[in-house]
Every structure is written in structure tokens, then in C-alpha cells.
């Protein structure tokens, strides 16, 4: 097996040249590195519990209802702004981690609870629950493999305008809406067909039709009331509240290696404040999550302590993450082969270097 070399300009299409190259090079559905953990400890880490997620969901929905009610109550005055700031962040950002964790089925022990929160969060974050379940499966199989991973947030060379616009959900929401309408009329794209099994595709179409009906009803209510308020509560929060999930989401893999089969090289663990960790459901422990997706969000800090000797030093803060990521993005505008090469501590098992040399000349030590 070899790393893909000198494939510039990259073809991120799931049906293009690099998709075929990834298969030929053994990067598709490959065996990935993971830190050794004794079975007994792994079982303890994987154990499911309803209690933490029920507590967090009560807080989450309670805050969502109270902030939304406050925004509606003060609608028409500037006092509504802080309420909608909270409501929007909960609606347009915390749903990113809720769909994700419940999609893995690890948030709750009881499966119907995972399914219920998954469906609600998917609606709010505007991600078709069928399409995104399967795209995320591929993301975990082929994490940041060019041509295979449908969830690469920042491709090379980086489209920084797109990144900035997505802090306000603009392009993501536009694409989500056009995808929803396309699915609702019964069309599944060629890219979607590469990762959604045929028997699942009708489910994606059915969900899109239900969502389209909800949005049409919301728009109709807004027109009837001659007020933006219904859309401030349903739909628009995906835009004005997207900032936090984009801020944290870019840190997951931004600026790091492509086409390696070791999550220590292409994922980033970042220490974050408790509020962000609540919104993000501990996905700041992202190397750990990718290496062991069976471990529930509430056990990730413990997993981190257990395996950090084998991982690159965590990024100490969100700010520190952006301080390394933004210069890397800017440099990739001039040289798209550049990436941030992760350094492992002496206690870690070494890299398989041949998987980390997609352009040794351009690679830069942190």
C-alpha cells in the first residue's frame, strides 16, 4: 500500500479520478491505526448509559424553548437579540453534535432516544438523516481520503470565501435546500448513489418531502402574519446560529494531512471551554472519536487520558487551533500540497512514514 502522491490538482469528486486512485492505492476501506487498549478497559469505555444524554437533552431542549420564547416575546425590540443569539446557537450549532453522536447510536443506551434526537437534530441542521448517516459512515471509513470522503470541510486549495460564508450558514443552507428539493422530487445524485444503498434511497426522498412541507408551511405562516418571526424560529437559525459548529468543525481536520490511514495525522484534539464542550458534545476529542467511534461522548475525556501518550499533543485552545490553521490555509493557497505535519511524543508508536509523505518537500513540521 502506498500513499497517493503528487495528485494535484486534487479531484475531491466521489466519482472522479482520485476516487479511483484511492481504491487502486489501497486507501479505500483500509485498516487504520489505533492505540492498543486492553479489552476490559475498552468495554468499560464503550458502555452505554441513558443518564448523561437525558440530562444534557433536557438542558438543551429547555434552553432552546426558553430562548426561543424569549426571542418571540421581545420580537420587535433589541431585547430579542440575546435570546435569538442563544436560540440560534443551540438550533444551528449544537444540533451538529447531536445528529452526529445520535447517528453513531452512542449518546443514549436506548435506541429510540438516539433515533428521536437524531431526527430532530437533522431537521434543524438541515442534513437529510438518511443521506448523512451514510455519508458519515464513509467519512469514518475513509477519513480525509481525497475522492472518498464526502465530508471534507476544507479542500485544497482552500476556498476561504466559502469557509467565511459558512460561519453564517449561507452556502451550506443553500446547498441543503437545493438538495432537499432535488430529493423531494425523487432525484438522488450520482455522488449520493456512491454511498447510499439503493434500498435506503426512498427513505431519503420521503424525509425530504416531509421537510419541504414543513418549510412551506413556515413560509406560508410568515406571509400570513406579515412577520419574519416564524422563520426566525424555524429555518433561519441554521444561518444565524451556525457560527459555533463551523468554528469547532473546521478544527477537526483543517490543515492536516490527507490520504493517510492514521487519525493521529489527520485529526485534531482541542481543549475547549465547558460551554463549547456542551454545545459540541466533547467532539473536541476528535482523534479519540475517530480512533474509537464506539466510545460515547461522555467517556471521551477518560479515553483521552488513557491514550494521550500515543497521540500528538492536543491543541491547547480554539484560538491556538486557528493560529496554526489559518496560516496553513493561506499557505495552501500558494502550495496546495502543504499541510501541518503532526509530531508524536516519544511515548507514541511511530507513524508509518510511507503514509505521510504525499509530498515530503512541502510537508512542514509544526
Amino acid at each position, binding site marked *: 500500500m502506498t500513499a497517493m502522491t503528487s495528485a494535484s490538482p486534487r479531484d475531491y469528486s466521489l466519482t472522479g479520478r482520485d476516487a479511483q486512485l484511492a481504491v487502486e492505492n489501497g486507501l479505500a476501506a483500509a485498516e487504520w491505526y489505533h492505540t492498543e487498549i486492553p479489552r476490559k478497559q475498552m468495554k468499560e469505555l464503550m458502555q452505554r448509559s441513558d443518564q448523561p444524554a437525558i440530562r444534557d437533552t433536557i438542558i438543551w431542549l429547555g434552553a432552546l424553548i426558553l430562548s426561543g420564547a424569549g426571542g418571540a416575546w421581545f420580537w420587535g425590540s433589541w431585547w430579542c437579540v440575546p435570546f435569538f443569539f442563544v436560540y440560534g446557537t443551540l438550533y444551528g450549532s449544537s444540533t451538529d453534535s447531536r445528529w452526529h453522536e445520535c447517528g453513531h447510536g452512542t449518546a443514549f443506551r436506548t435506541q429510540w432516544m438516539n433515533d428521536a434526537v437524531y431526527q430532530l437534530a437533522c431537521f434543524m441542521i438541515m442534513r437529510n438523516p438518511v443521506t448523512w*448517516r451514510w455519508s458519515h*459512515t464513509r467519512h*469514518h*471509513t475513509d477519513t480525509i481520503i481525497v475522492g472518498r470522503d464526502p465530508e471534507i470541510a476544507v479542500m485544497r486549495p482552500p476556498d476561504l470565501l466559502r469557509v467565511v460564508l459558512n460561519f453564517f450558514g449561507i452556502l451550506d443552507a443553500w446547498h441543503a435546500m437545493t438538495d432537499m428539493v432535488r430529493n423531494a422530487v425523487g432525484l438522488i445524485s450520482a455522488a449520493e448513489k456512491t454511498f447510499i444503498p439503493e434500498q435506503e434511497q426512498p427513505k431519503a426522498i420521503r424525509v425530504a418531502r416531509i421537510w419541504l412541507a414543513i418549510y412551506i408551511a413556515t413560509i406560508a405562516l410568515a406571509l400570513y402574519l406579515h412577520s419574519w418571526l416564524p422563520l426566525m424560529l424555524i429555518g433561519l437559525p441554521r444561518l444565524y446560529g451556525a457560527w459555533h459548529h463551523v468554528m469547532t468543525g473546521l478544527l477537526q481536520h483543517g490543515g492536516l494531512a490527507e490520504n493517510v490511514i492514521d487519525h493521529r495525522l489527520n485529526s485534531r484534539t482541542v481543549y475547549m471551554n465547558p460551554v463549547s464542550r456542551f454545545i459540541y458534545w466533547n467532539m473536541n476529542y476528535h482523534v479519540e472519536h475517530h480512533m474509537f467511534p464506539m466510545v460515547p461522548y461522555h467517556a471521551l475525556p477518560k479515553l483521552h487520558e488513557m491514550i494521550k501518550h500515543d497521540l500528538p499533543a492536543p491543541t491547547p485552545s480554539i484560538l491556538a487551533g486557528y493560529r496554526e490553521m489559518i496560516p496553513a490555509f493561506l499557505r495552501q493557497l500558494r502550495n496546495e500540497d502543504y499541510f501541518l505535519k503532526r509530531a508524536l511524543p516519544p511515548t507514541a508508536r511511530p507513524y508509518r512514514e510511507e503514509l505521510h509523505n504525499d509530498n515530503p518537500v512541502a510537508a512542514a513540521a509544526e
Partner: protein
Amino acid sequence: MSDWVEACAAGDIDEEDVMRFDHAGRTFAIYRSPDDEYFATDGLCTHEKVHLADGLVMDDIIECPKHNGRFNYKTGDARGAPVCVSLRTYPVKVNAGKVLVQVG
């Protein structure tokens, strides 16, 4: 019908857990249920050929460690995305403290 093959000692598997068993170039997963019954299935997930023995047993469910796909290990039924194809199951019996699997 093939012979019964000794997979492991009954005490080798904790309750509500799973163990890998390789035989004649094939890999199996041997389960011990919370009710202290033993079961066997193919050892690899039907989705992407990951060893189920690294997964999590909850009641009568085995969850794949890679993508969290779920099977009922007693019947082999696929129980949730991303798995769509059920597992093959194999008869199991315990004799003199040994777990035997009919691997034919």
C-alpha cells in the same frame, strides 16, 4: 453436516461479551449472553469486514466497532444502518466446560 469444533472454554468469555475464534481460515464471533447462553456468528461485519469481537455486546445485540452497525447475534438479523445484510449464525453447545461450534 460438519463436526463440532471446540472454540474456547466457557469461562473464557465474560457474560454479555464476545470473543474471536479463528478456524480453518475462517473467523467467527462467539457470544455469551447476559442469560449465560452461548451463540456464534460469522466474525466479520457484513458491512466492511471489521472484526465484531472488538465490538460491544448489549443484551442480544452486537454492535460493530467501526460504524456502530447492529446485529442480533442470536438470530444474525441486521438491526440498523449501516448494516443491511444479516450475519450467518452457527449452532453452539457447551460440553464439559467447553464451547463447541458447528462450523459447517
